[in-house]
Structure formats: C-alpha cells, structure tokens
C-alpha cells in the first residue's frame, strides 16, 4: 500500500494536529513540507490537495483529505487496531467524545488560535503583538477554561476516562501558549493544569517537537 503523505508546515498548528495523530497511531508516513513563505500553498499543485489553500493535506494512495480534524478522525477510525486508541467503538462513549471535539473546534480553538497568532507566531515572524486583541481573547479563554476546569474535576480527560482526539486536538495551540503570558490561565486552574501537563508529556507529542527542532 502506498505511503501516507502529510503535507504541511511545521509551524502550523493544524499540521501538528495531524502529525501527532500519525505518531500516536504508530504509522509510517512521509512529511512533505509546504513552503508557505513563497506562497506554495496557494499554487495549483497544492490547491488540488486543499482547495482552500491551507495546510495540512493528507494523501494516501488515491485518497486526498483536508481539514485537520477530518484527517485525524479518518486516521483514528481507519487504524483503530493500531497504536493508541483515539476514539471509542462504544457509541455512547464516542458521542461524548464528539461533543468535546466540537467544543475544541467551536469554543476553544477560535480564541486560542488568535492568542497563538498574537503571542506565539507574530513574534517569530517579526510582527507586533496587538495588546487589545490579546486582552479580549484572554478574557474569552478564561471563560472557556472555567468550563474545562469543571469538566476535568469530574473526568480525567475531556471525552471520559481515556485520552482521545478530544484532548489531542488541543495540543498544538496549547504548546504555543505555554511559555507566553497566557500560560497563567492554564496554571491557575488545577485540573486544567494537570491535564495540560499530562497530555503535553505524551511521547507522540514529544516526537512532533523533535521534528520542529530538527528543521
């Protein structure tokens, strides 16, 4: 069977979401770097993989997929018998996991991504952080994390007893925000803080970090 190819950029949170999933599932894959600084992601060749001109994209034989959360789900189901179990076969347990996957996508990520851009990526690219945007989004993130604190007081992981995609999807933005002023929002909530420490220490996530350090 053809190799899995993950197209993307190592600084992209969405790309990292896919890479950590491939590592968790212990799958062999080829990472194909997309040079966003030269606009490669907007050129015809890449648009045939992702018509939105965004990273990442996945290729596996004839299959082409975009949207990181669709890719992680496909990989988690297709390789359910390999590596870490990232979804549930039990439909009730999976329904709860799906709820918290949507919470990440709809409540957490819009806010965390804005903070990641302002505090994590802009400095890296030599751009100026917009303090008003940071203040506005830290206030929003605090409210989301209050809900998480309550949830994680009753459940070891967001989806239930086990680590699943519902937790994994948070890793890329989390990593950026730790080590910025926003870290205090996580540290000041004990259950959230413990959960962050737990999931960011996973070997698969450390492998993604190692990829970044090599390049």
């Amino acid at each position, binding site marked *: 069977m053809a190799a899995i190819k993950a197209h993307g950029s190592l600084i992209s949170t969405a790309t990292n979401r896919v890479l950590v999933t491939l590592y968790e599932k212990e799958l062999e894959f080829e990472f194909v770097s997309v040079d966003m600084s030269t606009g490669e992601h907007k050129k015809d060749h890449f648009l045939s993989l992702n018509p939105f001109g965004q990273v990442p994209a996945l290729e596996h034989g004839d*299959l082409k*997929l975009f949207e990181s959360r*669709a890719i992680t789900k496909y990989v988690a*189901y297709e390789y359910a018998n390999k590596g870490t179990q990232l979804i549930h076969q039990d439909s009730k347990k999976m329904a709860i996991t*799906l709820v918290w996957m*949507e919470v990440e*996508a709809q409540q957490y990520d819009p806010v965390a991504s804005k903070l990641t851009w302002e505090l994590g990526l802009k400095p890296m690219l030599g751009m100026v952080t917009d303090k008003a945007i940071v203040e506005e989004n830290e206030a929003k993130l605090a409210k989301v994390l209050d809900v998480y604190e309550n949830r994680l007081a009753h459940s070891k992981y967001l989806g239930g007893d086990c680590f699943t995609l519902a937790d994994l999807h948070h890793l890329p933005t989390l990593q950026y925000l730790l080590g910025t002023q926003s870290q205090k929002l996580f540290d000041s909530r004990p259950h959230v803080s413990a959960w962050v420490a737990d999931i960011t220490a996973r070997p698969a996530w450390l492998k993604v970090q190692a990829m970044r350090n090599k390049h």
Partner: protein
Amino acid sequence: MATPVKVYGPPMSTAVSRVLACLYEKNVEFELISINMSKGEHKKPEFLKLQPFGQVPAFEDESISLFESRAICRYICDKYADKGNKGLYGTNPLAKASIDQWLEAEGQSFNPPSSTLVFQLAFAPRMNIKQDKVVIRQNEEKLSKVLDIYEKRLGEARFLAGDEFSLADLSHLPNTQYLVSGTDKGNLFTSRENVGRWWDEISSRDSWKKVVDLQKGA
C-alpha cells in the same frame, strides 16, 4: 414506540435548526422544548447542567445528554443509521471521511463569516443592537472567498461531499436560509451558478421545508 428525543432551544436558532433538519432527515421523532433566551433561561443553573456554555441547542434521549449541534447530528446519524436517509453520514469509511472534511470546512471556514453576517443583518436589528458596517464588509469579503471555492467544487460534484446529499450540505442550511431569505446578501449565493443550483436543491428538501415552517410558526 420509542420515546421522542428532546431538543432544547428556539427553532429560530441556527444551531437548533441544524439538529432539527437532521432529525427530520432521519425520521426521528422529537419534542422541541422551548428555552426563553430573552429572559436568560439559557444562562440559568438548570440549563447549564445540560449545556455548560449556556448556548442552544441541548439534546437528550433515553440514554444520553449532549450538546454542540454538529456532535448531536453525528450521534443521531450513528444511532439511527437504519432510519430515514441512510446515506446522510455515508455508508462506508471513505464516504464518511469526505463528509467529515466538508463538515469541518463548514464549521471552520463557512460558519464564522456567515454567522457573523446573520447576527449583524438579521438579529441585531431585532435586538436593537447597532450594526457594525466594518464587520459586515469584512465578513462579506471572507464569505465571498469561501463561496468562490464552493462554486468550483460544486461544478465538479452535485453536492459538497459527492453525488449524494449529506450532513455536510445540511449543516449549511440554517445560516444560508437567513442570508437568502432575510437579508440583502442572498445574491452572494444566487449570483454564483453552481452555488445557486446547490442552494435551490438542498433548500427544497422536505426536511428543510419542515424546519422553515417550524421557524415561521414559533
């Protein structure tokens, strides 16, 4: 006979109507429980037990309580796989992956600008909130770019995920209904040939007509 499932929230809410469309497609009987948002019922402790973010919808059946409309829809499709429209969430893993891809595109790229426009143009006036012309212009530009991509896609395929109507198309119904029928931005959809054709087709489905009737009656 099975107990009807419960959906909490007003039918005029885009997220609530997303769930209702799915229930109609799957022929699943439901009870719609009103939540008086103008009186802040959605922020009260009793509702927060069902939906900790204080938003609609919430969903309950005999075994589970859920929130987030797209998660509820996926659950309904999985639990009632053999009822109603059996292909709504695909009948094989590859079909499902394609549907998930376009459902994520809806949630990540289509929903943010379209729901902002729905709020600014359809809801803000009713709530005596001042419209923000800069926000309207910015989001119209963003939505236009997304619809250009849809125009190309819908020239290659009848529906977003392929040849069959799916949850991915359904998820677009609520916001588009408001923009086409309730604002002057309907031309964003109707002026694009393939998008216009697609909108006519998906909004003519019996399931969506039933939702629109519910919205009018409420």
